[in-house]
């Protein structure tokens, strides 16, 4: 390279020509292997995720006004080349408001901490949500008390079903996960 640039460019010697040709062919060879490799690591993979729809996760009677309850959400999922039958895909917190009057009496929060993705636990000793990794603390309504989290706990769409045959109402939730470290919740998928 240095040779080529230092010389007068209008005078191409045989040697410099061959050098250029060599670079070109090496580059082409690299491209033939490199391009598929880039795609190999960065390209999209076939995704088989259950559509994000409301699914029943727990009967209303599970929830309590005393303290949030944690519910493991089950669904089938694909991890790379393995398709798993329905099993745990995530954990959510159900919080029931004191008043049982209007709609939205139960709220559902993602247990993944919006900060760096640790699991938010309920610190029953102090009555707050608490992420043990970096000490983000959230009020029982999901809002942030303090700590490094960029936002409050991620709330998931949640509704109550009509009473079933046993008179039980069910909590239905659309399960989602969100990017960590952003101010606004952005779904990961």
């Amino acid at each position, binding site marked *: 390279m240095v040779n080529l640039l230092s010389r007068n460019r209008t005078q191409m010697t045989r040697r410099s020509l061959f050098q250029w040709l060599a670079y070109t062919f090496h580059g082409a060879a690299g491209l033939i292997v490199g391009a598929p490799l880039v795609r190999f690591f960065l390209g999209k993979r076939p995704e088989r995720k259950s559509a994000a729809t409301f699914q029943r996760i727990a009967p209303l009677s*599970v929830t309590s006004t005393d303290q949030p309850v944690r519910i493991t959400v089950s669904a089938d999922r694909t991890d790379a080349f393995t398709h798993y039958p329905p099993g745990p895909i995530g954990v959510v917190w159900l919080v029931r408001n004191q008043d049982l009057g209007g709609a939205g009496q139960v709220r559902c929060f993602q247990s993944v901490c919006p900060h760096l993705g640790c*699991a938010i636990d309920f610190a029953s000793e102090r009555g707050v949500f608490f992420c043990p990794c*970096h000490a983000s603390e959230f009020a029982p309504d999901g809002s942030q008390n303090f700590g*490094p989290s960029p936002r409050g706990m991620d709330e998931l769409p949640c509704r109550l079903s009509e009473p079933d045959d046993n008179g039980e109402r069910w909590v239905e939730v659309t399960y989602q996960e969100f990017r960590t470290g952003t101010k606004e919740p952005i779904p990961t998928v």
Partner: protein
Amino acid sequence: MPKPATPQRNTDARHGTTYLWTTAIAALFALLCVTGVAMMTVYSPSVATAWASVFYIQDQMTTGWLVRGLHRFASDGLIVVCTGYVLHRILTRRYAPPRTRQWWLALGFLQLAMGAALTGALLNWDQKAYWGTTVRVNIASLVPVVGHELRTLILGGPELGQLTLTRFFTLHVAVLPLLFYLALRARHRDAAGLCKPCGEAPDRTRTEPHDGRIRVRAYRGAVRLMVVIGCFTAAIYSQYAMGDAHLHAPADASALDYPARPEWFNLFLFQWLKNFTTADAEVLGAIIIPGILSAMLTVLPWCPRLLTKRLGHALATAFVLSLLAATAYLTVTAVQDDMPPSEARLASVREKETQKITLTSRESRDLHAHEFQIKLKRAAFEANRAMALARLHGVPPEGPLTLMHSDPDVQGPRLFAAHCASCHRYDGHDGLGLTPGTPATSSDLAGFGTRDWIRAFLENPMANTHFGLMKKPDGSPAHTRMKKWTNGQREDASSDADREALRASFDAVSAYLADEAVQPGRLAANKETGDLLSRGRAYFMSTCNECHTYRGEQEGTRHAPEMFGYGSVAWIEGMIAQPDHETRYRNKGRQPAQMPRFETTITPEQITLLARWLHDSAAKSTSTAQD
């Protein structure tokens, strides 16, 4: 023409003790390669088998623990030695041109050593690996603009899973060792090349034999050998001093209570990041400042050239030393922050909290540390339990989580904490070791159904560990009939002999009921033999049976819970599923059941796990007490 002795001395001066460091690096690298390849013959990088295969190496194979331990401690040692090497280069001014490349290689060694340790950590596929990697990758995703794409590239998909494991495996066993080897080779060549300007002539041109040279070589060879032996011994000694390389419970994304902390060499970053508590600041603390510092380390060789030589060296040395001091300080404070507070201090902080006084950051740190330590103990228990289960049953093809999810000792306390601890306690805590903020309103179920528990109940049914905390909706004490009955019995016993007889009867019936918990109905069929249990049985049938049914039958008319198999798994299951059932506390009468039905709340499997844990842990506590 220079004198032959001069360049020789120069070479010595140039080499100094650098070769000791690189020898140690090469020795540890070789040890890592050998033990690593040995483990590769067993390890299986899939989410279902990774933990199981590491467990197999660690626990089942002869000297597997030793090979894995050597690998682990050699890896720690490599990071220490690489740091020492970087430091050595700064202190002996071996970083400026013409040794720029050598300096970069030294930094490269350190980076590669840490990279290998971090990728290797995930291969265990245990809780520490899972949560640690989650956080590390999410920190990487803070990189401006391409952060999310970077995260996807590292993880191989939207979340931590199979492809993350195979990617880390490839990095750990192929890419990083290869780069490390190339770096070592480049350093070796550079070192050889740097000798040339000294004017040392190649061997063959020498006309006279040079004894000094040979002596130096022999001396160095001996020292090198000692360094190698020293490194290996240190790795073995670490294993002896610090115990086996730990294997935590298998990775479980649904277990929210794992107290994650970074690897020891990342603790300083963890502590550092505590100072950045907003999203924008976090990018600054996690990416930008470390990036600038790394860049400064990289361009350090030009520092003496930009300033005067002496000032430049002084500045560069001060910079590296202060970085090291800050790292050490942060690491120590990170460990200190997690140290458990003293009992007295904890009590005073709790007192402040109940009075709703705002806590200082130090005080809330104490509370966090207290919770952290409890969770750490729990995590250690689960790690041991996972190993015990794997030893006992073997790991099924679906993976080790199946074992963990169907084990009463693992799931029981979790379920208790989640569903029972808002009213009940287990030995004063919530099953997992924490004390709920809201006071208990019902019995303490540790040892439920054991002889001691029942005997204490008969002594004082209204003790806080039994019925004492239960209140009717109007606030008056609930379940007082048992208390009335025991009081009545005591009043009836007028003489000392009667009182002694009553005590003996209570002892006997406690022993008998504790036996019902273990083998329901065993004594019902037996003839009276006069021993403690059958005396208890006789007392039960003659006295207790007036209120308490036995297989649905009773002498009297008043109602109290069924005692057949009281405290057994089936009895507890029934109690959890339908506390208001006819055979339990009923939903009518003067003192209806206050406990909600759990049959709709948790699955039958979960009820069984909970009941089995309550029953088995009680049985275990009795057997240890008797031993």
